[in-house]
Each structure stands twice: as C-alpha cells, then as structure tokens.
C-alpha cells in the first residue's frame, strides 16, 4: 500500500507509481481507488454529493470509501495542468480500466442532468452498467474482482489507452484537451464494451472524436436498445448525431456507450465550465480530430455530417425532440440538473415570447420581457374590450333579417373588406373606438373610460350614434383596417384624431364617467 501512500501524498506524482504498476490489474485496482479518490476529490466530489441521493447504494458506498481518503487530497490534488500528461495517461488508463468494468463510479455519480425529463431512463441507463463497476470498485479494495472483468483486458492492451486515460484524468478543470479526454475516456469505455480495438487505435490521435460520439450517444442514450432504436429515427441536425451513433452501435452495449457518452459529455461540460481559459483552438482541433476519428472509427457517412454538425452544435444545447430532452450544459455554465432544467425553461419561455412578439403589434420596439408582457396584457385587454364593444354594437343594431341575410352574412364574412364600400365608414367608426381602445404606449384616458365597465357600455349607445354620425365624414379608405390593430394604431395617429375629437367629443363626458 505504499503506493497508495504515494498517491495520497502527491498530486499527480502518483501517476508515476501508477505507471509502474500499470500492467498489473491488482495494482491498478489499488491505483484505481486512489485515482478515484484523487479524481473524485478533485472533480467529482461535489457531483458525488449532489448525486448521492440519486445514485444507487453502491455508488454511495464507493463514494464514501473514496471520499474519505480523498478528503485529505481534495484540497491538495489539483492536477498540474501541464507536464504530467504522461502520468495522466497512466491515470486515465487506470480509469479506463475502471470504466471498462461498466462504469466508473464517478460516472455513475455524475448523474445526467436530464433527470428532470426522464430521470428514470437516464439513471437506469447510467446505473445499470454502473451497478457492476461500483461493485467491482468496491471489490477493488480487495483487489481481485477487477481482474475477473473481461473488459479490462482489451483496454489494458491498448497502447494509446494510457495516454487517453491520462488525459482523461485531467478533466478536472484543466485544458479543454484534458477535458476532451473524457470523451476519449468514454470512447475507451465504449471500445472496451464493444471490444473493438480499431476504435481505440484511431482514438489515440483524436480525443475529441469521443466527444462527438459521446454527444451522439448521449443524445441517444438511455434505455438500452429501445432508446437506441428510437434514436435511430431521424430528427433534426441533432438527431443526425443520434442516428449515426445508433447506427454505429446496433445493439452493442450501446446503452453503456451512451451512458458513458452522457457521462463524458457532462464531465466535459463540467471541466469546461471550470476551465477558465479553455484554449479554443485546441478544442477546435480536438473536435476536428474527433470528426476524423469518428469517420474512421465509425465508418458511416453520416458521421462526418453529424460530427460536423455536432461540432457546430457543441456550444449549443441540442434538444432532440424525444420523449425526454437532452440538455447540454453550456460552456461556463452550471451543470447541475436544476440549472439545466432552468435553462431549458428559460429558453422555452423566451422562444414563446418571441412568438408572441410577432403576434402582438407594436411589440417590436419593446425590449425586455416585462415590457413585452405589459404590451401583451394591453393587447389582450384591448381585444377583449373590442369584443365587448362589438357585441354591444350588435345588440343595438337593428337587424334586417331577410331570407338572404344570413347567407349574405356568411358570404360577406370572407369576402375582402375592400369590396364592401359601405363598410368603410362603419369600420372606420368602429375603428375609432378601437383606436381608442388599443393605444400602444399612448396612455389616453379615454381608453379606460370607455371599455371596462359594462354600465359604461350603455353610454356607448349614444356613442354609437355619434359613431354613425362620423360615417358621413370622408375617411380615407383603409383596406383591412379591421384586420390589423396596428393599422388602427397608426391610423389613429394620422387621421382619426381629429375625427375622434369630433365624434366623441360629446360622448366623452359620458364615457369617461366611469
């Protein structure tokens, strides 16, 4: 256990010890625990604690195991960003071993932030393979069971695995490249599950490819094959990634892959958030490398597109319209489930506000949600008042119910307004009232006076008479005036003001009484 002590004592220097014992799985087990400790302490502890309640008992036990020795290292283990890559590769290799068992406990602890939408499926995906690794990790303390795990063998055999693993362990807020190693890491786990070494070989050069695959897998990730089959259904650009992933991983531990992807994606986002200065060119290169790797690794046409799309979409949170919504944590933003859900909500709300902005006239100039909401409220109120006014008008109007009236009416309903010459005046007269009603950002007192009180509606009877009087005035024909309230608003500004003053002058005392 002196090696453990080495780990405990040093930061990354333990990687050297790890390197020494790299090939021995038993040693690796010990190292893994230590690695877990340092990794977890550096990176995962907060997540662990957050997700403790969600994780299965194994994870909690493991984390408790890990955290206790790691606690001492929590403060101290800040992986030096540079110069320890070799050591880090070893560490990552170890972690890869751990992950190959099904999942690393940190992964399982880093529950997907999608818990809001589809917690059960996500967590189940994450936990189901994760269940084995925690157990294995627990047994790692004994140092025997990991050897039994078959997946470790191919991983350890991978030459580039150590490098990737080392990079992976650096995801704790270090460079983006280091963060990228998560992708690699996940990719490695995927590889281990698939036992496809070609992927690993290709991945040596491009850690970022994992990211793409991860993202794809993540988007598809959930219940094992069912979800993947679902993921294969084409969606938008986001779905391209998913479909590509699903195609690539037909029924092969794909859920695990997806889970790993999700984990890696989350982890990636976390270190990204933590990394204050993530070298973007490095990330871009990594991404491009990812793309290349993906194409080579997966060998599917869509991958290039999806990878590119994924690269483009990396900064955006893709939300595939599946039965649950995958949300990516954006760079520099919190990644816990609550904030992610909050962000989703906020985006939904802003999207709807934009739609409302198109609906409500005169909203384009208004900026800010509160002001826009005020505008919307005013508009709805004005519309309701218009309905009341019109129903009052209909109540007072003397209908000439001929046999043809109703037929004419229904026909007129859908004819162009401009074709009804007589309608101009009544429309204009109505428009006067409507113009009074809805005044975007023009607080005329008449607005309040006219509409709200039903009793005031009675005073509209003489107002109606006044309105009809105004029909005699030559109002400029406005086509579609009744169709568009903004027209009324502008109309109001131009010509109706004088008319209204004339028409409503006698009625204002009455209508403003309320």
């Amino acid at each position, binding site marked *: 256990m002196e090696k453990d002590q080495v780990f405990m004592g040093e930061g990354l220097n333990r990687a050297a010890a790890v390197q020494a014992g790299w090939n021995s799985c038993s040693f690796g087990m010990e190292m893994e625990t230590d690695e877990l400790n340092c990794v977890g302490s550096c990176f995962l502890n907060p997540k662990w604690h957050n997700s403790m309640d969600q994780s299965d008992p194994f994870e909690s036990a493991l984390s408790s195991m890990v955290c206790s020795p790691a606690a001492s290292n929590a403060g101290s283990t800040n992986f030096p960003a540079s110069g320890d890559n070799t050591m880090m590769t070893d560490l990552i290799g170890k972690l890869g071993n751990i992950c190959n068992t099904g999942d690393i406990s940190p992964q399982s602890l880093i529950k997907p932030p999608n818990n809001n939408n589809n917690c059960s499926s996500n967590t189940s995906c994450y936990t189901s393979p994760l269940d084995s690794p925690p157990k294995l990790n627990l047994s790692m303390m004994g140092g025997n069971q990991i050897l039994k795990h078959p997946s470790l063998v191919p991983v350890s055999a991978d030459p580039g695995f150590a490098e990737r693993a080392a990079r992976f362990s650096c995801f704790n807020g270090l460079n983006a490249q280091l963060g990228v190693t998560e992708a690699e890491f996940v990719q490695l786990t995927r590889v281990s599950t698939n036992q496809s070494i070609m992927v690993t070989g290709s991945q040596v050069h491009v850690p970022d490819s994992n990211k793409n695959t991860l993202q794809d897998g993540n988007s598809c990730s959930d219940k094992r094959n069912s979800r993947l089959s679902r993921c294969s259904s084409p969606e938008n650009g986001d779905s391209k990634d998913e479909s590509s992933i699903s195609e690539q991983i037909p029924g092969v531990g794909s859920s695990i892959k997806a889970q790993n992807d999700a984990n890696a994606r989350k982890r990636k986002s976390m270190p990204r958030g933590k990394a204050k200065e993530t070298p973007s060119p490095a990330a871009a290169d990594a991404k491009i490398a990812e793309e290349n790797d993906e194409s080579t690794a997966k060998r599917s046409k869509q991958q290039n597109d999806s990878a590119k799309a994924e690269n483009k979409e990396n900064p955006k949170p893709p939300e595939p319209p599946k039965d649950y919504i995958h949300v990516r944590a954006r760079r520099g933003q919190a990644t816990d489930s609550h904030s992610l859900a909050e962000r989703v909500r906020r985006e939904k*709300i802003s999207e709807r506000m934009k739609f409302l902005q198109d609906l409500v006239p005169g909203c384009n100039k208004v900026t800010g949600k509160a002001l826009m909401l005020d505008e*919307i409220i005013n508009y709805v109120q004005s519309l*309701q008042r218009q309905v009341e006014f019109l129903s009052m008008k*209909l*109540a007072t*109007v003397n209908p*000439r*119910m001929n046999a043809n009236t109703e037929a004419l009416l229904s026909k007129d*309903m859908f004819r162009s307004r401009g074709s009804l010459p007589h309608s101009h005046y009544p429309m204009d007269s109505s428009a006067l009232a409507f113009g009074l009603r809805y005044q975007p950002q023009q607080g005329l007192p008449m607005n309040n006076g006219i509409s709200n009180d039903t009793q005031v509606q009675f005073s509209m009877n003489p107002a109606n008479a006044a309105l009809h009087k105004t029909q005699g005035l030559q109002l400029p024909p406005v086509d579609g005036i009744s169709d568009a309230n903004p027209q009324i608003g502008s109309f109001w500004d131009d010509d109706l003001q004088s008319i209204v003053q004339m028409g409503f002058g006698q009625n204002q005392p009455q209508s403003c009484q309320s």
Partner: protein
Amino acid sequence: MNNPHHLNPTSLKSRFTTRFLRALTKIRAQKPISSSSPTEIFRRYRRIKVAADKSMAYSVRSRRIWSRAMLWKLRSRSYRRQDPCSGRRFGKTNQAIMKKSSNENTTTRREDGVGFVEEADELRQLVPGGETMNLCNLLDETAHYIKCLTTQVQVMKKIADFYSF
C-alpha cells in the same frame, strides 16, 4: 385584394362564424329589437357576448386550456342559473376535470428567475384558466387566445358592419 370567396370550411374563422351567426339569429328571434330600453339592450348585449365567447370556445373545443376553462365557466354559470343546487354538483365534477387537465400542464408557480411575476399574474387573470398554468404554458395559451380573439373581433366586426348599413 384577392381574397378568394372560397374559405377553409374547417378553419377557426368559419367554425366560429357559423356558430356565432346561429346564436345571433337565435337571440334576435327571441326578442324583437323594437324596444330600445337600456336594460333590454344590455341584456341582449350580455347574451351576445356570451354567445360570442361560447361559439369561440366551442370552435376550439377542448384543445386548449383556455377554451376548456371558458367552457367550464360558461357551463357552470348556466347550470347555476338554472339550478342553484346543480351548480355545486357541476362545480365539483367539472373542477375535477379542470384540475386534472390543468395538472398536466402546471408546475409550481414560482419565481424562476425570470422576474416578471406580476405581469404574469395579470396575464393569468386575463386569459381564462390562466391561474392554473405555469409561465410556459401561459405564454402558449396567450398566443392562441390572442389569435382566437382577433378572429372573433374580425368576424364580429364584419357582422356589425353588415348589419349597420
């Protein structure tokens, strides 16, 4: 303008128009508009307004929360008018239905950091059934409600114009 005479028979506009016209003729058939006393006119006005709201809500059916709320309100009002006791019964069953439908869409109303709860509350009072909606759905319903209101206003304007010349 090239507004075609043909119209989409299934559009909201046509559905509302037919229903509303039917209701209007019914209302007018009930009482001749000879009397122009304010009370009479007021009663007719109320009836027409209710008919307008009803036709609109029926045209939308139960597809929207606000239409369901409006229908429930209208029904409960009419039931209460007919039979004060049945209002209670009706209220219970329909409130259960309303709550069930609203529970699907509601989340706890809270300040989720957007910061305009007062306006949202005001909007909730305007849109029927708005009290039970979270902000997201509220905005959705508001958009549809605005669309329906504008249709309603258009149609009623046309009718009024047709009648008033």
